[in-house]
């Protein structure tokens, strides 16, 4: 290309010189006209040809540069960083004077492309981290919402910064307007507000728990154990200096159930203690009377020994009952199930409780089915359940009342019911009567008990035999306890 340009330039110069020389010769008159004019014409043609060649070469070079630059600026900026992005550009003629400039431009664009690529990669990484962070926030919020304990956070300005669902329900907060609500405007929980303020001002020792009373929206006062801590500490940030600058978070745990359990356990211990001391008192008193020779007659001594023996048996039964319940609950009881007659078990139960019924002049009405009602059961345990239900009915039926026991066949099940004309139970008592240690307060004085008989009966019926024990009661009129058990088809073992 360079040679072609030199040739064009040289041709133009030579032709120009040629024309100039011929014109000089013509003017000087040294040559004949036609020949000289022909030579001048040829020189002009060569000059014009050389000029045309030069212009052609220049034009082609310019087009190549334009094409190159067009392609360069048309490149996708996002692809500039890729190594092959600039390799496919239209080539520039080697002799092009634009080549160094185009090269610098290309290098500058390549560097820009690399930076852009790097920036894209950083952005993608940041976007991925942002997505993960958003997912973690959403997950943490879902976990927080799912926590059944109320969780409440306040910022340094005393505004509610966060409250989970349980906290919103307890404090009657509008879910849409929870955040940024002034703490002082929350009602029914002044103790909690004071704790949060103390905690956010750093005047409450970190991690300290306190018991507070909070009235729920229905007005029921509930007891909560509150764990308070600075909000910043939980996020790993350093709390700002100065009082009242940091926030606080409080986690409330409903301890009503715990308190109720403690109370019932104390009542149970008291009841067990009473139940144990009573036979023990008999044993000790009669042993003393015998030891001190107070019983002079043989008949009296025999009577005292019978009382001691009877009270020792009573103590034994109480301990057995406690152990039986504990074993069933712990799942370590040995169950010996055999096919047998339900009516036989019930008849024996009636024989056991008959003296207690007679002592209160209660009529025991036995209406057992004439059919054979087969059950696959541990006979001793089922008898224990029947005795407990019958004893309970006798205990809570006033003197002269009636306790009816009946059995029947019901499809694939056998059923026995114990109906009394006793004091009855209200719906709340019906719901809780099978809770261990629960005793109906208003009937407390009618009879002593440990609150274990009915829970034990239910364990035996439902957990050991896969049956169902239900109660239906009308306060003041009486109760009916119904036991449903799967029917066995084969008599005997």
């Amino acid at each position, binding site marked *: 290309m360079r040679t072609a340009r030199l040739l064009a330039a040289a041709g133009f110069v030579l032709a120009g010189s040629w024309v100039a020389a011929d014109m000089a010769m013509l003017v000087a008159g040294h040559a004949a006209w036609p020949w000289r004019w022909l030579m001048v014409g040829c020189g002009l043609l060569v000059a014009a040809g050389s000029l045309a060649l030069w212009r052609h070469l220049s034009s082609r070079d310019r087009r190549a540069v334009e094409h190159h630059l067009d392609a360069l600026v048309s490149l996708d900026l996002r692809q500039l960083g890729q190594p092959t992005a600039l390799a496919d550009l239209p080539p520039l003629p080697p002799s092009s004077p634009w080549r160094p400039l185009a090269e610098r431009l290309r290098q500058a664009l390549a560097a820009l492309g690399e930076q852009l690529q790097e920036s894209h990669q950083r952005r993608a990484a940041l976007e991925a981290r942002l997505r993960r962070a958003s997912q973690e926030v959403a997950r943490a919020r879902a976990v927080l919402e799912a926590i059944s304990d109320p969780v409440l956070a306040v910022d340094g300005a005393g505004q509610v910064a966060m409250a989970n669902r349980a906290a919103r329900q307890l404090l009657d907060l509008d879910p849409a307007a929870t955040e940024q609500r002034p703490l002082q405007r929350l009602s029914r929980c002044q103790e909690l507000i004071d704790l949060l303020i103390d905690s956010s001002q750093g005047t409450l020792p970190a991690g300290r728990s306190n018991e507070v009373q909070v009235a729920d929206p229905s007005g029921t006062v509930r007891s909560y154990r509150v764990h308070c801590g600075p909000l910043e500490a939980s996020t790993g940030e350093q709390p700002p200096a100065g009082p009242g600058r940091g926030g606080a978070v409080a986690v409330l745990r409903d301890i009503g159930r715990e308190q109720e359990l403690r109370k019932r356990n104390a009542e149970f211990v008291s009841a067990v203690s009473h139940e144990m*001391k*009573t036979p023990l*008192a008999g044993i*000790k008193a009669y042993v003393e009377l015998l030891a001190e020779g*107070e019983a002079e007659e043989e008949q009296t001594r025999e009577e005292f020994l019978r009382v001691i023996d*009877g*009270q020792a048996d009573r103590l034994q039964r109480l301990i057995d009952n406690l152990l039986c319940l504990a074993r069933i609950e712990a799942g370590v009881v040995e169950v010996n199930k055999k096919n047998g007659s339900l009516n036989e078990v019930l008849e024996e139960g009636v024989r056991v409780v008959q003296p207690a019924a007679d002592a209160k002049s209660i009529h025991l009405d036995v209406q057992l089915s004439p059919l054979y009602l087969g059950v696959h059961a541990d006979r001793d345990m089922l008898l224990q359940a029947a005795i407990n239900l019958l004893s309970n009915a006798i205990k809570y039926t006033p003197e002269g009342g009636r306790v009816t026991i009946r059995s029947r066949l019901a499809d694939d099940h056998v059923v026995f019911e114990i109906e009394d004309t006793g004091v009855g139970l209200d719906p709340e008592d019906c719901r809780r009567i099978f809770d261990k240690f629960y005793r109906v307060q208003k009937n407390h004085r009618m009879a*002593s008990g440990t609150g274990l008989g009915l829970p034990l009966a239910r364990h035996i019926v439902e957990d050991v035999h896969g049956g169902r024990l239900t109660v239906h009661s009308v306060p003041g009129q009486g109760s009916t306890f119904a036991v449903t058990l799967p029917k066995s088809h084969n008599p005997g073992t």
Partner: protein
Amino acid sequence: MAHRVLICDDEVHILRAAEFKLRRAGWEVEVAGDGQEAWEKIQSQPPDIVVTDYQMPRLDGIELIQRMRQHAPTRHVPVVMLTARGFEMSPEELTQRWRVGAVMSKPFSPRELLRQVEQLVGPVHSTSPGSSLPAAPDQPLERTVP
């Protein structure tokens, strides 16, 4: 004339043991199976002393004492309380508020019961029944027995 004691307990064998011990010591003994029966007997003929259980059907020991303290003829009759309960009411409260002469925990010793009863009323053969009663009605009668 022998002193009269009313013993009130819903446990028959406890009644029988206490009755046996006091009767052998020369006391005239009346028994009741619950607080209501005891109250009816106390009203019809006030005894010299009452020995009662704490927890009983119909009317418990505290309500029985409450009625006795509000009833003029029995206001100053000494009371011994027998209880198997552990911590419902402190002996101090029983003695100071209800003027119970002695609180005895079950299991109890019949010999100790007799001693307490005699300490409050005097032995059967003493010449002045009720000589150990307090001078002022509201004053606690006696120390408690744990």
